[in-house]
């Protein structure tokens, strides 16, 4: 077996927390196959995070190039494929987030590799468990070939542990880059001081029953008291009550916090697929028949209008008591 190339993302001099899941999966794959984990950082200024990455991998490859200022699958995929070749990789791993899903399948095409998406368990160097049918079943797949591609579900892998000694860092050239005419235009995002939904310890989520965006303020108050991230069901995001990037579910974000509080969410299977890995689930819904109660550890049949103010107040008392 060759090495395992872990495609990491950075934010300034820090590694993104999502990349610690990718490194963790890479460690497990290398544990089965016998190769080393090589962390790859790509982008303008990616070199700033080399020291951070070197805490987790024996070797870090940095491709720091002005032409890679904005992420584009068209330019990043050939770079990842090139470094995989140079580093003798038999496996390329990334986190199954927006960038990982977009880039690694393109890489798989460039290097003619088979790919397992969104794996939740490493069973061998090329054998993985992954959810299918919105998490209603799990499939064990074997990927054949000298080089394989994998994306790992962030919530299924613990953050990688730091190694005792810092790894070695080398720089590499991006080579010829052809964006195929694609251009980054802009990103529109809502700035928030709340934790990232993908790796928050607590998530407070609202659904269709909240009726309008203004009503989410009650949930946000609770979230801020708990230091939680905000989530929502598809019904709420589709209705425009809250931003689309709050969506938790099969096709939104897959989360597994310590505590997930679902308020006025009925619990369609597509939503459950995104949160049923949470350690403790609380459901508050006025409909006692709501499917969300089937996955909840604690269910309260109540209108949110009645329950939320009391809940927030009671929790505030506990927080105040320390």
């Amino acid at each position: 077996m060759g090495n395992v190339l872990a495609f990491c993302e950075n934010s300034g001099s820090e590694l993104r927390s999502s990349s610690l899941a990718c490194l963790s999966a890479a460690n497990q794959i290398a544990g089965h196959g016998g190769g080393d984990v090589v962390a790859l950082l790509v982008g303008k200024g990616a070199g700033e995070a080399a020291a951070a990455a070197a805490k987790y991998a024996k070797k870090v490859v940095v491709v720091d190039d002005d032409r890679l200022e904005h992420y584009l699958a068209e330019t990043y995929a050939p770079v990842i494929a090139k470094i995989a070749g140079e580093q003798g990789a038999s496996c390329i791993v990334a986190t199954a987030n927006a960038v990982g899903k977009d880039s690694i399948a393109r890489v798989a095409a460039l290097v003619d590799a088979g790919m397992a998406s969104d794996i939740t368990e490493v069973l061998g160097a090329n054998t993985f468990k992954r959810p299918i049918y919105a998490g209603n079943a799990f499939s064990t797949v074997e990927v054949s070939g000298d080089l394989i591609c994998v994306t790992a579900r962030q919530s299924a892998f613990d953050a990688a542990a730091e190694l005792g000694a810092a790894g070695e860092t080398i720089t590499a050239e991006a080579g010829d880059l052809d964006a195929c005419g694609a251009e980054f235009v802009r990103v529109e995002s809502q700035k928030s001081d709340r934790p990232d939904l993908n790796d928050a310890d607590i998530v407070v989520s609202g659904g269709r029953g909240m009726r309008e965006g203004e009503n989410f303020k009650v949930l946000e108050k609770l979230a801020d008291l708990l230091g939680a991230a905000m989530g929502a069901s598809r019904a709420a995001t589709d209705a425009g009550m809250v931003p689309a990037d709050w969506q938790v579910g099969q096709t939104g974000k897959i989360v597994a916090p310590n505590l997930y509080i679902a308020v006025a969410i009925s619990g369609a299977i597509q939503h459950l697929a995104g949160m049923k890995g949470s350690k403790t689930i609380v459901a508050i819904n006025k409909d006692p028949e709501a499917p969300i109660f089937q996955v909840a550890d604690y269910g309260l049949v109540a209108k949110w209008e009645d329950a939320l103010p009391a809940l927030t107040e009671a929790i505030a008392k506990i927080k105040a008591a320390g």
Partner: protein
Amino acid sequence: MKILVPLKRVPDPELKTKIADGPNGPKIDLSNASWVVNPFDEYAVETALRLVENADDGSRDGEIIVLTLGPEDAAQQLRTALAMGADRAIRIDTADTDIDSHTVVAALMKVVADESPDLVLLGKQAVDNDSNQVAQMLAGKLSQPQATFAASIECVDDGKALVVGREVDAGVEYKKVPLPAVVSVDLRIVAPKSVINHITPDDHEYSDGPRYASLKGIMKAKKKPMDVKALGDLGIESAPRVVEQAVELPTQRAAGQIVDSVDTLVDKLHNEAKVI
């Protein structure tokens, strides 16, 4: 604009997933499956229609070809897309299982070479295998630009390029891709004003979601051409790189408890689950 929409049939996602024992271990039970067009692919058909039509006067400027890899029965899902308004269909005869993204992409490459579409438009993932690979792989193999997880599309540069709003982790990223290109669509592409082709008046509001086939559409669909090819006719052998070894149901969560009041709930969260 000539648009190729590859679509997949999937077991109705609203029905319970079942597992049956097979000769090589447990498999998803498809014996009594109720098949539907993969919802994201249905959204791609709707998107293709919105890109080529003038919703005001009903005229069209472009052609929509729908394609599937599947057995004879899968023709029904192609007819559904034809009834929505696609112009013609291609079915590549295969079984539902034992083909992976690699095989699908190899077949699509051949069809793209024959048809030279301006745009390949498809769902971001099929809700059976949830792999989310085909669009990216096809674009990579074709050396074409890609825009995945499209929540909005606007035609620009006299229809020679698209500006695609992509749902990413931090919000919406806008990316411009010249045609030919490959675009995969996300849920919100079928919102009332997600597709702007500058042929339909920009302020036009579609109804939310994919359109239903009209009775007239269903009648017309029966007469629309459907080409059938064998995978072998395309010079492709199915040799999957990804082989499913076993399937299992997830472990069920232990039954929870219904609490009678907010105070009990907070007490349990604090003293029993110790999460707050």
